[in-house]
Structure formats: C-alpha cells, structure tokens
C-alpha cells in the first residue's frame, strides 16, 4: 500500500515535470514565434514595408527559431545590399528570396539593407548541441589562427576580431546557426555562391574540407554574444586576400 502510493506519487511528480517542461517549451516557442508574426505601428514606415521579411528573419532581423534562416540584424549595409541585389538578379540562388525581391528597385533594396544594418536586437541563446572537444579545438584554431600551411587565413582576419563583420561588405558571423554556415561555405566551395571578383571567400572555401567547415560552424555557434555587435570599420587591417566586396 505504502509502496503503491510512493509509486503513484513518483508518477504524479514525473507527469507534473513533463507538463511543466511542455509548458516551458510551448511558451519559449510562442515567444520566439511572436518575433516572426507581422506587427508594425504605422503603415507608411519602413517597419511596415519590411513585414515581408519578418516570418523568416524576425521583426528586427534577429532571426527566428527556424534552424536555417540567418540573423541579418547589424550586418554591414553594403553586405546586405549586395545580397539583395544578387538575389534579385539571380546571381545568388535561393528561390524564396529570388521570388520575393525580383521586382524591387536598387534604391529600395538599399533602404531595406540600411534598415536591418541599423538594428541591434539581442542575440538568441547560443546552441548547446554536443560537439567533441577535438572538433571545437579545430574550429577555434581555424577561426582565430587559420592554417597557414594550407593557405587558410583566420576568419577573424576579415570578419573582425569580434566576428561582427567589417564595413562595408563583410558579414558578421556571430549569431548564425551551424546549418546556415555549413550550407554557405559548402555552396561557396562548390561554386554555387559567389561574391564580387576578386572573390576572396571562394579562395578560402576551396581550401576547407567538410570536417573543417563543420568544426568552424560548430565553434562559431557556441560563442557568446559580443559586447559590441557593430561591424569593424573598413580596412583598419590589411586583409589576407583581396576582396571585391570591399571596394
């Protein structure tokens, strides 16, 4: 009898814990999801005009709880503008984006880019996917030191000491999820994604292996939010490769 009530008690507690966990998960997802729901104050405003972006990139460009869509807030305006133009003209291929911006003029794409470049929303909690320490170490070493024997420069050499990017054309890497980073580096390596010539990122990507890419993506996704999320000023440093997007 006593034993039975203890079991029942334990079951009740487990059930309660499960319900609590489910509730927490639901509220977390509702919170994250609410960032992805259209909302604005005034119709004649840039906030209202960029509602076409928010279900994937979040109200302020912070990203959403979807694993793929990247954070765009605070990336240099020049970089965001180059991407919008490339999506519109088809030189960067991702059909949902190609379709959305197909008939938008340069000046408007510039305005949209500048809007999201100015945003400073908080960063999402970092990912806690288990990665073995060897992979983490390899990722950290590639990001911070590169691998000179293979001609691989450190990510921080161009993407900024705080990995927040560099004006005008180099994106920040903090706050991006591993799926997105792996997909982009792989696309660059196989020649599916390009930047303005000379395409410095291509020169880096072709020197990376699948394992390198996975390690870099894993380490980047584990980094804490930067104190100052703003991109570095242009050309404070000599970059290891010439980049068309910095001209």
């Amino acid at each position: 009898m006593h034993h039975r009530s203890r079991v029942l008690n334990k079951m009740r507690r487990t059930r309660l814990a499960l319900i609590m966990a489910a509730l927490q998960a639901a509220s977390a997802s509702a919170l994250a999801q609410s960032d992805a729901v259209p909302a604005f104050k005034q119709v004649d405003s840039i906030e209202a005009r960029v509602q076409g972006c928010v279900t994937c990139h979040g109200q302020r460009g912070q990203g959403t709880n979807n694993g793929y869509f990247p954070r765009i807030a605070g990336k240099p305006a020049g970089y965001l503008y180059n991407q919008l133009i490339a999506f519109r003209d088809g030189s960067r291929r991702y059909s949902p984006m190609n379709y959305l911006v197909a008939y938008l003029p340069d000046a408007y794409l510039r305005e949209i880019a500048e809007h999201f470049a100015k945003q400073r929303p908080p960063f999402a909690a970092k990912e806690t996917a288990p990665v073995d320490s060897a992979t983490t170490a390899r990722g950290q070493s590639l990001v911070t030191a590169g691998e000179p024997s293979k001609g691989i420069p450190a990510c921080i050499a161009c993407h900024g000491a705080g990995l927040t990017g560099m004006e005008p054309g180099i994106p920040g890497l903090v706050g991006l999820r591993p799926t997105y980073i792996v997909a982009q580096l792989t696309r660059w390596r196989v020649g599916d994604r390009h930047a303005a010539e000379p395409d410095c990122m291509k020169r880096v990507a072709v020197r990376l292996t699948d394992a390198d890419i996975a390690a870099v993506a894993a380490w980047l996704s584990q980094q804490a939010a930067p104190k100052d999320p703003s991109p570095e000023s242009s050309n404070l440093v000599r970059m290891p490769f010439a980049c068309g997007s910095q001209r």
Partner: protein
Amino acid sequence: VSKLRLGLRILVALAVLAVIAIGAIVWMHPGALPNNPKAVATNATTQVINRGEYLARAGDCVACHRMPNGKAFAGGRPMPTPFGALYVPNITPDDDTGIGKWTADDFYRMMHTGVSRDGTLLYPAMPFASYTKVTRADCDAIFAYLMSVTPVKQQNRRHELKFPFNKRDLLLGWRALYFNEGEYAADAKQSAEWNRGAYLVQSLGHCAMCHTAINALGGSSESKAFEGGMIPNQNWYAPSLTSNREAGLGNWDIQDIADLLQVGASHRGTTYGPMAEVVYNSLQYLTDEDVKAMAVYLKALPQRDTEPPPTSQARLVNPTVMEMGRKAYATQCAVCHGDEGKGNAPAYPPLAGNQSITMSSPVNSIRMVLNGGYAPGTKKNPRPHGMPPFSHILNDDEVAAVVTYIRVAWGNSGTPVAPAQANELRTLLPE
C-alpha cells in the same frame, strides 16, 4: 589737373575693361542646360528611336530577350514549355549572332507573320499572334530602336524540344488552327481612346498570351479571348478579364484599373508574380494617357461568365476547418488585412469582396500564403509593401483552412480549398 584727368581716364578705362572682362567671362561660361527640355531639338531619327524604345517597353521584349542579370536583348534565356525548353534569341544588332543584318522589311515580316529572316517558322512562344496587330510604322520604330542598342556577340542556343515538337513543319498546322494574320483594325463605333487601349492590349501588350487559356497544343482560341487560364510552367492562374467573378473590371473605377496596371497596386487589388513582372518591366513606363486607354478598353470588355456561380452546397465549409482558418487569420493576417478583411489599400490589399480571392481557382491565394510576395517597385510606388511567406509556419491543413476562411468570410462567395491543393503548390519552387 592734367595728371588728375589722366588718372581719371586710366581709372575709367580700367573700369570699362573690367566690365568687358566680366561680361566675357559670363558670356563664355557654359552654365547649365536650359530647363525646358522642349528647347532641345530632337531630329527625326532620334524621335523614331525614342518612340521605338517606348513601344519596345509596351511589348515587354526584355522580359524574355534578356537573361537574368544579362545584357538587354542578348537573349539566351531558357523558356520552359510543356514541349521542352526554348532558348530566346539574341535581338541586338550584332551582325553575326544578332539581327544586325536584318532589314526593316525582315523585322516587319517576323512581327507580322511569325516567319524569321531565313524563312524559319517561329514557335508561338514569341507572341506573333499578338504582334501581327502592330502597325508597320510602330514595327519600324521598334526596329530602329533595336538597331540603336549596343550589339552583343552572343551565339543563340538551339532549342531542346521533344519529338515531335522539334519538327517546325508541325507549326504549319498550328498556324492554320490558331493564327490570324493582320494589323489591328480600328472599330469606328468606339472612341479613339478605346481604340488606342484595344490596340495596346491586343498587340504589343500581348495580354492574351496569359489571360486566354492555352490548350494541349499550345494554342488559344479567339472565341475564348481573355477568359483566363493557368500559365503553363509558371503555376500561376491568369484570371479571366471578362468575368466579374474573376478579374473582370466591369465594376472597377478607371483609376483603379490604371493604378493596377501602371503603379502595380490599387485600392481594389495588387499585382504579384508574373503580372508584377509585366508592370515592372513594361507597364510602369507607359504614359498616363496610354494606361488610361487600356483601362477604358479593359473595363468595356463584354462580360461573360463561362461557368455558373458555385452552388450553396459547394460553398459549405466544415466548422472545424473554418475555426482553424479563423485562428490562423487572426494571428498572422489580421494585422495587415484587418479583422474584417478590408485591408489597408494600396499597401495591403482588401480580401473582402476581392475577386482574385474568391475566383474559382484558389491557386494564386494559396501561393501567396505559402510564398508571400512584394508588389513591383515602380516609378509611382518605388517602396512597395510586401507579404511574408508562411510555408514554414502553417502546415497544409492550416494553409487550406486560412485560404478557405478568406474565400468565404465577410460575405465572400468562394468555395473551400483542400489540403492536397496546398500540398501540391508547396512542392513547387516559388517564382
């Protein structure tokens, strides 16, 4: 005294010299061009080329004769058709790879009869069934313009059509069935404005290419003109322009029709997808007078409904579905389109009483919910509002429910949509 006089004379002489010098500087300085553009005389050739450029815009040549990100008129763009891929030719004036060696007669024959310079029959992806109605003078102006653009050396690609469609002789049969040669003939009973609109819609505008159903042979019959149909390979539905239950414009204001065509957004509805492309590349460049003429003609098209309105039985909606749709609408849609579906036009189109929502084909509404869309950025609306995609947020049941909801709520007269229809369109790439 004489010294004083001499000094005075020298001063006067210097003053005169200074005035002359200043005058010379002012007179010789180029300055800005006069403000009035009419003061700049354009010779006859320039006028013809300018008119040709305008008409080439009205014909939307670049929509096909340019690769995305490619040089205008250099061709190369693959056009998927149900019969295989066609590759659009180079129409820049390059002697070897373009139309540099063509004459105005060659060009007119091609536009008017669909026969190329060397006698080859053109595939009807080139809208010569519409362009046949273009006047000789307008064809000559377009030709003069095309001759004036920068030649691009770019070899044409061979078409990749399946047998038997790769046999051009078959086109003789197609032409016998579907091609009526002849320039536009004005209707004396109608106004000059109506005739101008009819000319632009029927000839250069080649609206019938999408807004008239295309049958299994890639032909469309004149008796069904503007009755609407699916656009092959694009999976958008081009609504009927002759039915007030679709995009029939019988009860629209002229200004709203003109805005839809030229601005891309109006108080009654907004253009997305293939029609946004037409506005972006072509119609936004037309004059207010020409756009109004098109609106006058389109509004006056005879109204004929090809099918009866849906029965009340066909309009019955499962209450669970309705509730699911209402919830999704309240969460995701109402912020822009309003609780009562009234929208906030022209930024956010109304859904209540909107024919493009209630028309029998739900394809466009489903696509908008899945992929979102921006109205085209035009001279009169350079910063359009846009709708976000929901394909990653709503599942097939929810997409079908919310589209069902907007088709029947607020007195809308549409019919419910099945989740399978949402699923079918989800698997397609947005374009």
